[in-house]
């Protein structure tokens, strides 16, 4: 059974439809990347799983963690799961820690939010966690406030907070975006190591396909709140089948691009308050069909590779 099962999830804020009919499962110990442009609903997806969407959000569909149906739990029951079975690494390590308190005491708070242990015991474990995520001289640095930590070190501390109660699922929302490239690689290696050592399943949200290709087993591509492609990272990123994924992959700048030849995707992301009724990419799609005004299904195009596109559907029918 999947660790996390998202079934036909739709989230809307008033007239704005942020996610439509998204289904996605994550197995224990798996790293699944969620990619897409800004505003495509990546963060909304993470917050929906955590049950941390603002009260104005309307949520339909079902989210299950193990045997628990998260969408049916009350706030107090969800609160007991947050941090213990699922944890979230929020965007931007520079502001993800409370500037008022020492790094160590924030990890201690995270531990004591669920585990009934003494401060001394929690503080010992906090130092262990901080060393595990690669903070040198953790016992001394635990006493310092976040302002004395660099971006990479803060991100490590934020990850230590998320690991405090050894969650089965870790949702990392753009964990490397605010970091420079060498630190990015270190943090990715850290995340990969967590899965190895602890068997933590990870939903890695990022707009950076390069980052996803380095650590993900599978990748899900979101466009304007719709899941368009899902499959093994190598297949989706190297042999994409959806026109949007193809455009996204070819827009990634590489060193062998001739100068001045950056590829972009024509048109702009639709207004989510007035999105096209069918495939939301159809307005910008170079190969759109009249059929595209209806919602395409996710169809398998290979082992563990699904695409929602009418071209694929027609190809299968043929």
């Amino acid at each position, binding site marked *: 059974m999947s660790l996390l099962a998202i079934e036909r999830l739709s989230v809307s804020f008033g007239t704005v439809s942020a996610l439509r009919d998204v289904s996605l499962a994550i197995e224990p110990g798996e790293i699944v990347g969620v990619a897409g442009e800004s505003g495509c609903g990546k963060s909304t997806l993470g917050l929906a799983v955590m049950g941390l969407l603002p009260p104005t959000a309307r949520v339909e569909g079902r989210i299950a963690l193990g045997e628990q149906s998260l969408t049916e739990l009350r706030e107090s029951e969800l609160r007991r799961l947050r941090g213990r079975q699922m944890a979230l690494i929020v965007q931007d390590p520079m502001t993800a820690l409370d500037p008022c*308190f020492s790094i160590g005491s924030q990890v201690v708070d995270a531990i004591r939010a669920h585990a009934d242990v003494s401060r001394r015991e929690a503080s010992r474990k906090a130092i262990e966690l901080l060393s595990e995520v690669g903070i040198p001289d953790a016992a001394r640095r635990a006493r310092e406030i976040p302002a004395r930590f660099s971006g990479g070190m803060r991100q490590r501390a934020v990850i230590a907070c998320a690991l405090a109660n050894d969650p089965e699922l870790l949702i990392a929302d753009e964990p490397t975006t605010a970091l420079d490239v060498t630190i990015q690689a270190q943090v990715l290696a850290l995340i990969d190591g967590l899965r190895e050592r602890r068997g933590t399943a990870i939903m890695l949200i990022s707009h950076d396909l390069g980052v996803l290709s380095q650590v993900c087993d599978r990748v899900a591509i979101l466009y304007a709140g719709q899941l368009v492609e899902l499959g093994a990272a190598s297949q989706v990123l190297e042999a994409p089948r959806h026109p949007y994924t193809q455009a996204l992959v070819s827009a990634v700048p590489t060193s062998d691009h001739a100068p001045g030849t950056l590829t972009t995707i024509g048109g702009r992301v639709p207004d989510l308050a007035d999105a096209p009724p069918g495939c939301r990419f159809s307005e910008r799609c170079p190969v759109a069909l009249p059929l595209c005004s209806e919602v395409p299904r996710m169809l398998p195009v290979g082992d563990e590779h699904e695409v929602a596109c009418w071209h694929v559907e027609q190809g299968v029918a043929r």
Partner: protein
Amino acid sequence: MRGSRKALAGAAILALLALAGLLAPLLAPHSPESIDSSRVLVGPDVSHPFGSDALGRDVLSRVLYAFRTSLGVALGSVSLALVIGTLLGLIAGYFRGLADTLIMRALDMLLALPALLLAISLIAITGPGVWIVIVAIALIYLPIFARIVRAAVVRVAAEPYVEGARARGASHLAVLRGHVLPNAFGPALVQASVLAGFAFQIEAALSFLGLGVRPPTPSLGLMLYDGYQVLQQAWWADVFPGIAIALAVISFLLLGDGLRARLDPRGIAS
């Protein structure tokens, strides 16, 4: 740092004044209420360094006791307004929505009335007294504190570390106490110091109008009123309590200015 030097100066003067007020029974050379008909309006001399007033009472002793009363009124009213205002501001700024609208619009109504008019109407209903003056000043200050705290809370509540704490399973109460209050409290504390200074003035004004502290309890405002009647013959009966008020106001303002540099760099409380 200039900020900390100012704060230190303010705190030092304030500590001296407060100590003098607290130790009034030990420091005062005479009883503040003993009337001596042989010393009516006698100027400063060795036995009475600040002179004596129209009833022959020692001005120095009365200033010491009066300072104690006025300081109590200032601290009492500010604490009362700070505690209730902070609570209301926290609720309004964190939960927003209907609670926010109800709380802030109700406080806006208080804010719409001129401060002294509000105090005078309250005292007109209940009659004067130390406690009523404290409540009246607290009522004037309440919307100010609530608005400052709310503004800071709205900013803090949007910080990723608040979402992070929620994601670790912290309850709203734990987040409010553990993250929102510590990060949002600075501006209110700065304002508390500034408003404590002005509380001396409001207390003095109310007592001057006969609506504040009642005799025989000595207060700086009452002394100003008494001295004002005989100002042409005896400047000392008015000047010394006046200096005490000025010193208190200045030291609270210094302290507030100094704290602002440390606790409220964004200037929410200005």
